[in-house]
């Protein structure tokens, strides 16, 4: 039975899981969840994820939610196929991958996501982007990106000179971030910019990027 991912093609968290599945050359089916009709907050979806969030992975009788747990599971289960995203043969490298995934989760994403929200989601609700929210989070992101710039001037990718889940974890939210006026924060840091151009050009990401739209191309 093929793996199923319940989620949406434009969701950062869903695409985080899908990029990983593509890197590992795993067949899967994307089952759309109509979040605009609150399908994710009602049964039967709530039986899959009681927190009412996408994505959810179904692999035979295993149901998993939380995108970073899904990528961790997929990368481990299929560790012998495709690129070594988790450095499973070297526990120190493996743990540096986990450390930088934690950094993405606790420092990068919380600064980037509100900025994405203000530029992409607020307009859908008829609101102007909130300048205070944007500025506050740009200040937080500046600190994070300065650390990244220093690290990426010493290694090609975050956990070392190897692409890993830690880098992959950043792709979806950064893709949207680069379409906001704040993209200059990435572009003006030469090593972060080079890293972004590298990881976003990977074929696995190219397979999902087409679905990552809020319809902004239709807007003036």
């Amino acid at each position: 039975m093929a793996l199923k991912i319940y989620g949406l093609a434009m969701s950062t968290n869903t695409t985080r899981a899908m990029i990983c599945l593509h890197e590992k050359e795993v067949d899967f089916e994307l089952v759309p969840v109509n979040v605009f009709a609150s399908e994710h907050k009602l049964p039967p979806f709530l039986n899959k994820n009681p927190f009412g969030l996408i994505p959810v992975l179904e692999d035979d009788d295993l149901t998993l939610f939380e995108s970073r747990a899904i990528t961790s599971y997929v990368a481990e289960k299929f560790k012998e196929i495709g690129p070594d995203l988790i450095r499973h043969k070297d526990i120190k490298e493996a743990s540096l991958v986990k450390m930088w995934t934690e950094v993405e989760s606790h420092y990068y994403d919380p600064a980037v996501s509100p900025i994405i929200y203000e530029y992409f989601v607020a307009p859908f609700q008829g609101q102007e982007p909130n300048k205070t929210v944007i500025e506050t989070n740009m200040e937080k992101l500046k600190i994070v990106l300065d650390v990244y710039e220093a690290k990426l001037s010493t290694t090609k990718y975050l956990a070392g000179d190897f692409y890993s889940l830690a880098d992959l974890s950043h792709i979806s939210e950064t893709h949207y971030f680069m379409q906001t006026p704040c993209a200059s924060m990435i572009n003006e840091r030469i090593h972060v910019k080079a890293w972004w151009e590298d990881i976003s050009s990977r074929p696995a990401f190219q397979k999902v990027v087409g679905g990552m739209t809020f319809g902004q191309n239709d807007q003036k």
Partner: protein
Amino acid sequence: MVVKVYGPHCASAKRVLVCLIEKEIEFEVVPINVLEGEHKNPEYLKLQPFGTIPVIQDGDYTLYESRAIMRYYAEKYRSQGVELLGKTIEEKGLIEQWLEVEAQNYHPSAYNLTVHVLFPALLADNTPNPKVIEESEAKLVKVLDIYEERLSKSKYLAGDFFSLADISHLPFTDYIVKYMGKEYLIKDRKHVSAWWDDISSRPSWKKVLELYSPPI
């Protein structure tokens, strides 16, 4: 050479200490005075560039982020002490899921309550924000309702086995239960309360509290 854990009195460091004790790994601690801003000193920032606690040094290997550190030691010392990563890949997947749940859904609210109610000196303006306290508690209530349902079906979060996912909840839940007057959040939920009594009575947690009690 023995692993050094920086900042043992801080809640996040305690996740690591419990894990090390459960895995029967010797360690040393290096106290860091957060209230005096020692974690923002250049020497500390060389080890942990984000200026947060904890960080470990194990020979020439440096690692930060408490959940990453736990995963490292639980994996490295798989064959000794208590098994904290489950027995199968599927069990490990569920442990990862509930570790993420703790990190994404539980921790932010528990952390806000801790800082605003107990350690407002850590805030930029030293002033607790009642709105933050109220909203954090409301979010935590929703999360704990889901935990109650989950723990009515399995003894621990990832299944009928104790794991890193349970350990991750110890430090901040201890603050909630003991020092804030909000113990009802845990105690009023039958299965969450039983789970809390179980995990907080483990010798590893008692030892950590005995040695590195928070500065309250």
